[in-house]
């Protein structure tokens, strides 16, 4: 099974969020960037497990500038066989999806994996777009997946439960917690990653359909009101009369 795994670069989960240029741009000063956790922990690892079980290999794909090579090498250290970087800034979801689809069209992949969303934009947009551009089924929020190489059974999360579905042939799958267990690259993996192929291909560019015009931080809380732990009737009263939430 040959699998394409799409990865993104995001700020570290503990990164400070601040903005510059009149609040139009994310301030990357001092920010450590990582591979998007949903891409790394679940999509990449499950894809590698499937190739270990069924044969074939995992190709890692990233849309981004050369500074992203560090996270691509990490994905190779975890177990990707080779990587492709489409050389442009990932400005909007459609540009990213169009470039992934364009590349995937020229190859044959049995499955395309990505994380359910990135932890910076939180859009869940790219997977569905790639699936539509390639005219493939899309199974989002996969928490379990088994495959014999052609027929795959996938459990996906829905509101208040799960849905089990079966798909024949290639599909796009977005990975959610539970699909796999995070793998920490070992020293051998890290050494091998250095000599694995990383191909850089030019991007197709177009005017962004959507652009971010301004960022702001959520309004700060005015301060906590402490309630006596012996007096929970008072907390209930505050929630009812003051906060008006119950």
């Amino acid at each position, binding site marked *: 099974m040959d699998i394409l795994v799409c990865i993104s670069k995001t700020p570290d*989960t*503990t990164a400070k969020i601040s*903005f510059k240029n009149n609040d139009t741009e994310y301030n990357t000063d001092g920010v450590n960037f990582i591979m998007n956790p949903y891409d790394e922990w679940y999509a990449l690892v499950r894809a590698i497990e499937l190739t270990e079980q069924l044969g074939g290999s995992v190709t890692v794909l990233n849309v981004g500038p050369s500074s992203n090579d560090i996270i691509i090498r990490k994905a190779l250290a975890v177990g990707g066989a080779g990587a492709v970087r489409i050389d442009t800034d990932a400005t909007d*979801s*459609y540009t990213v*999806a169009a470039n992934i689809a364009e590349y995937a069209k020229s190859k044959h992949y049995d499955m395309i994996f990505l994380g359910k969303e990135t*932890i*910076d934009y*939180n*859009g*869940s*947009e*790219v997977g*569905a*777009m790639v*699936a*539509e551009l390639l*005219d493939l089924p*899309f199974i989002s929020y996969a*928490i379990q997946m088994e495959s014999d190489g052609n027929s795959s*059974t996938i459990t996906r999360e*829905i*509101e*208040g*439960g799960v*849905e*089990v*579905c*079966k798909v*024949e*042939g290639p*599909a796009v799958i977005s990975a959610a*917690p539970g699909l796999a267990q995070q793998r920490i690259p070992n020293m051998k993996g890290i050494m091998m990653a250095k000599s694995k192929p990383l191909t850089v291909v030019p991007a197709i560019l177009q*005017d*962004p*359909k*959507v*652009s*971010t*015009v*301004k*960022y*702001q*931080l959520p309004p700060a*809380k005015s301060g*906590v*009101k*402490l*309630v006596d*732990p*012996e007096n*929970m*009737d008072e*907390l*209930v009263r505050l*929630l*009812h009369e003051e*906060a008006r*939430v*119950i």
Partner: protein
Amino acid sequence: MSVLVYVESPDGHFKKTGFEVASYASKLAATMNTDAIALVIGKADQAGDLGKYGVSQVIHVNSNDNIGFDSQALSRIIADTAKEVNANVVILTHSSSGKALAGRIAVRMDAGLASGVNALPDVSDGFKVTRSVYSGKAVATVSINTPNKVVSVMGNSISVDASGSAVTPDNKSVSLPATKLQVIEKKVVSGSVPLPEAELVVSAGRGMKGPENWGIIEDLAAALGAATACSRPVSDADWRPHSEHVGQTGIAIRPNLYIAIGISGAIQHLAGVNNSKTIVVINKDPEAPFFKAADYGVVGDLFEVVPRLTEAVKKFKNQ
């Protein structure tokens, strides 16, 4: 021109988030001096009731085929309907289904997509709308630059307005495209409130010491009619299912009330919940960072405070 809103009817019934998107579409259509049209696909009781939420027309696509959920088939029906009714804006719920559909519909309509928005757009100069980014740590204003637009709306973002009257739905049948996806089984926990839609959430963390102690959390949630949630260490340790994990790498929620019990409030956890309207923190450590993000705090032993709070809630409900 018109605004088309796709309203989900899981198991034949609309949910609150469905009424929210119908209200959203109607309010948006009013500012654009046009009509909002609702689209319902598959089994739906009282589809015409959506008229109460301000839509002027309800199109009900009936199908004898059990299509289950296939984003490929559904997105085609929605985009085709948008074209037929000359809609240049499509509104969806930012649910698991809505997220799987939005990107596909945007591609089909050559439209810009704003997903998970939390307010009505400003259409005075272009089409600008706000959405939460960086897992709840910031808010972005995004501009959709294309003539066609697709918007998915986060639950609990808009108040429901049911002051209109029901309409007679227009029934329509479509031939379904062949599907490569087959739904084998659907398992939904009945009676529980799905976390992303819950208005009240009771959440607990490592301070609970073990999964066997969760009874007091469930009792409080039951007394309030709330959904239950947990922090990441708790779901990682398999004390609770992953589907309950809220935070940066779990799900982001924005309920009216979030009660955090025995959760210290790491930045990754706060990211998923700090859009909650009111936050209550119960923790024995007065230095827990969560108190800084809270509206109300109780410093005390959760094993004493939580049952006491449950009793107080029951007393209040019985009044």
